[in-house]
């Protein structure tokens, strides 16, 4: 079991009713998919707001960052960097800068 720190954009913090970053427990190697599965299990209001229902595809305006790197286009079963699953670094979910 690994505890992963997750930072959410403001709209999703409001929806999940959390102040800042959250921690989720992940069983097995921490991949993007497993972190998001745990996040949605802990905060059901987030289902469908980061990745699509059914498809599981990342929503077009959502981005994933780890250790300062944009990993949005990496395979969702990619294991996150060691710094993320040791808690040194946060898995960051961001909304793209778009719109007004």
């Amino acid at each position, binding site marked *: 079991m690994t505890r992963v720190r997750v930072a959410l*954009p403001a*709209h*999703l913090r409001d*929806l999940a009713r959390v102040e800042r970053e959250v921690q989720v427990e992940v069983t097995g190697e921490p991949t993007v998919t497993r972190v998001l599965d745990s996040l949605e299990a802990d905060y059901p209001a987030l289902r469908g707001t*980061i990745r699509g229902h059914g498809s599981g595809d990342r*929503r077009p305006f959502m981005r994933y960052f780890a250790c300062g790197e944009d990993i949005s286009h990496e395979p969702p079963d990619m294991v996150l960097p060691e710094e993320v699953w040791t808690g040194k670094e946060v898995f960051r979910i961001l909304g793209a800068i778009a719109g007004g």
Partner: protein
Amino acid sequence: MGQVRVLVGTRKGAFILTSDQARRSWAVDGPHFGGWEVPHVNGSPAEPDRLWASQWTDWHGQVVQRSEDGGRSWEPVGNDFAYEGDPGTHQWYDGTPHPWEFKRVWHLEPSHDDPNTVFAGVEDAALFRSTDGGHTWREVHGLRTHSTGSAWQPGAGGLCLHTILIDPSRPGRMWVAVSAAGAFRTDDDGASWRPINRGLRSDYLPEPEAEVGHCVHRIAHHPSRPDTLFMQKHWDVCRSDDGGDQWTEVSGNLPSDFGFPIVVHAHEPETVYVIPIQSDSEHYPPEGKLRVYRSRTGGNEWEALTKGLPQEHFRQNILRDAMSVDALDPCGIYFGTTGGSVYASADGGDSWSAIVQHLPRVLSVEAQTLR
């Protein structure tokens, strides 16, 4: 003593306006869901403190919220709107096939008698129903799969199902309207639907009197006469006296028959209100004058209502879901503008005042009458 609650959806959040029966002094509460687009907020006729809100952003997609206390607190409910089966395609603006894709909920219509049942009209156009208080949604399949569905095209605002009318007296009968496909009716609780657009004429169509393709902006009726329907179309104001089987134009002396909302007086089934807009390319009232037009004859003869409304330099629009009536006596009329004002009349439209100004762009207005 009655109370009125006006539910306002805007481009950046929802607002709840409340007043007593006099409707002179208003409390403004909000924004709820600040920063989110809120296409629609509506209350359950069966349990008026149960409210439903559609909230949406490009980033996070669709969220549906429910309140059990008149909007003081909210809880997210289900937001999975999956089309039944293979979604197939509709026509894109250029006539090519385009996959049916869920984008957002435009309109939420609660059941008259079951607080756990609510309908959602969505883009790309489909009707969904929840019977478990919003936790799960299931497509009312027979509409989108009508034989004409693959030929439906979006209007300028998207291929949206924006109007849902439930017949209060005849179980199983409902009407919906889709831009730009037209009006449809079911008599078997959604199992089958048929287009009801006979008598409509849309000169922008290759076949102006086609079975589907009409850009219907809004339909309204009075609960005591559900089969008398009033329509504001892209151009033309129309009425039907047979549940939509046949329509007749009743634009009469309106300064423009283009517009978006249409509502019916709460106690006078032949009294109808519209807000004429200059044209399909100039979305503001003619002459810079904000004028509500009232017909007491079910159309054709219209009078301008201007007292208390700006009569110069008004260049804002009033969207299709942004007008509503309360059930008090005298009847209250409400509408919101794309400039962020909500206007109210407590005397059936004779005089108006702004409840609130400078809100974000108003997308929807629903008036609840609380006893």
